[in-house]
């Protein structure tokens, strides 16, 4: 059964066509990733699916409910973790959770148990009574995930969930996300511009300038680029080229001092190569295609690193000036 079904969804802001008629489906229990640079249309798409923005044309169904015709049906089915922080920092963690639970109709008798459960999941049980303003960025993000889960949504939307987090917190967060999928069979839809994160997804859609340019499993996407590349250097380059050609019958490229061949499975090829090779080599490097390469091949550009948005900077200033 499809948990998310997107049909010709598009969004226009004045002259700018941010999303240009996209189609896709996400199955129940899948982790589905939207990968693309800033301004590609990721956040616009997730906002339409989460009923924050209304589409210019097309429709989408989340848990069988139309984002056009039954917004509250969609809203009740989803948990959302925004790109920008959205906690009330004058309230405690518990008060933020209670606020959310009440709006989502979590029964009063259930609340305590669920709050404990989600706080444990994100390792914040001991901070439940503390004000959010005393929390670090990573703790806030974790609490937002806990909040997004307290009403037991069918689909969890994560918009750049690990942005601005340190590597340790980031990997913790991924443990939680994978656990949710494993233990609760939750469907997870996320956007990211980190290639290594996209690897965790079951399937990813690469989005660029408002269109989906590719949609497949990470492995299959990488396979499109061909095999792994083995790069070698030898004092006797010509002999090496000749031997590789003779022995494996493959094409051999020369790139400056390096000799390159493409093989299907690098890990199992290397031991064989070491056994076979007569010519002495000085160094060897195995390079597997990454999603970066896939993106580069599909769009001709690399994904840039995220810069702090102007609003983030404003927030920073506001905090420093003690406006809040």
């Amino acid at each position, binding site marked *: 059964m499809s948990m998310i079904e997107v049909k010709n969804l598009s969004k226009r802001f004045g002259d700018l066509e941010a999303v240009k008629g996209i189609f896709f489906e996400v199955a129940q229990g899948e982790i589905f990733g939207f990968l693309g640079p800033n301004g590609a249309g990721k956040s616009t798409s997730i906002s339409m699916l*989460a*009923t*924050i*923005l*209304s589409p210019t044309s097309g429709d989408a169904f989340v848990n069988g409910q139309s984002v056009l015709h039954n*917004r*509250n*049906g969609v*809203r*009740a089915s989803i948990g*959302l973790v*925004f790109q*920008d*922080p*959205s*906690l*009330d*920092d*004058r*309230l405690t963690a518990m*008060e933020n959770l209670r*606020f*959310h639970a*009440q*709006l*989502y*109709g979590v029964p009063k008798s259930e609340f305590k148990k669920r709050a404990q459960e989600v706080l444990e999941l994100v390792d914040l049980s001991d901070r439940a009574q503390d004000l959010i303003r005393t929390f670090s960025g990573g703790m806030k993000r974790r609490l937002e995930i806990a909040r997004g889960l307290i009403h037991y949504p069918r689909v969890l939307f994560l918009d750049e969930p690990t942005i601005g987090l340190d590597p340790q917190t980031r990997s913790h967060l991924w443990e939680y996300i994978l656990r949710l999928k494993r233990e609760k069979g939750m469907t997870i839809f996320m956007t990211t511009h980190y290639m290594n994160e996209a690897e965790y997804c079951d399937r990813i859609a690469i989005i660029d300038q408002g269109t989906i340019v590719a949609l497949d499993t990470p492995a299959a996407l990488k396979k499109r680029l061909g095999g792994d590349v083995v790069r070698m250097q030898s004092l006797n380059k010509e002999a090496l080229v000749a031997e590789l050609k003779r022995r494996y019958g493959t094409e051999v490229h020369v790139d400056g001092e390096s000799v390159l061949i493409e093989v299907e499975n690098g890990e199992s090829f290397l031991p064989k190569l070491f056994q076979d090779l007569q010519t002495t080599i000085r160094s060897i490097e195995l390079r597997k295609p990454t999603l970066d390469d896939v993106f580069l091949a599909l769009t001709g550009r690399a994904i840039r690193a995220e810069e702090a948005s102007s*609003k983030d900077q*404003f*927030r920073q200033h506001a905090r420093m000036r003690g406006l*809040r």
Partner: protein
Amino acid sequence: MSIFLQTILTIWHRELIRYVRDRTRILTTFIQPLMFLAIFGVGLQSAFATQNSGFDFVQFMFPGIIAMNVMGVAFFSTVSTVWDREFGFLKEILVAPVPRSAIALGKTLGATSIASIQALILLALAPFLHLKIFFFQLPALLGVMLLLAFAISGLGLLISSRMRTTESFGLLMQVLVFPMFFLSGAFFPLTSVPSWMSVLAHINPLTYGVDGMRQILLRPTLDAAVLSRIELYTLSTDVLFLVGFSVGMVSLAVWAFDKKS
């Protein structure tokens, strides 16, 4: 409980928690009225005393100052929705599966409650100004306070639904709040002012709040003859205007909030 009521209660509760926790805000909203009373009241007292108007100027100002405080607090409690937008929390509220109108009403009622609590605390100053206050006055007084607060909260929410940035805050103070303060009759009687000022004052909801509160608060202290010289309308007219204004503003605010997606 229905979703609608639960939502109103949840939003209202958050506003109150935030209010109670914000000591600076509580303190500063008391400082302003005290300042007005101490500086304007005492300063102008001597100027007015010469006219032998039959009332004490500080007593005259006191109901107006309370009404002003109600307005200031109610206004900024709802305009603070802009902060919620700036800091992301509004998104959390807006994607919840609840009716938008309930959110708007929760906000308005939260602001109304806070403004009225503040005003009731300010009332404790009355004995120091030699004003007689009786318990039987309280229900009527509270009624006018709640009405005024509700009307102004609606106005604040309506404005904040149109406002995108916090920078407009200062502008709003200059072009709306200060004129409303000064043209409300809080500082001087509106019974003998030029007609242009009178017109502006009569479309100002604060004028009716000030007039209503003044009549209730000063009745036990002042002569009926003196009081009739400074009152603009009968109390029921004041109340009627405020009811009409509230219904209009809150409906508009709810509509504006609802429409926005």
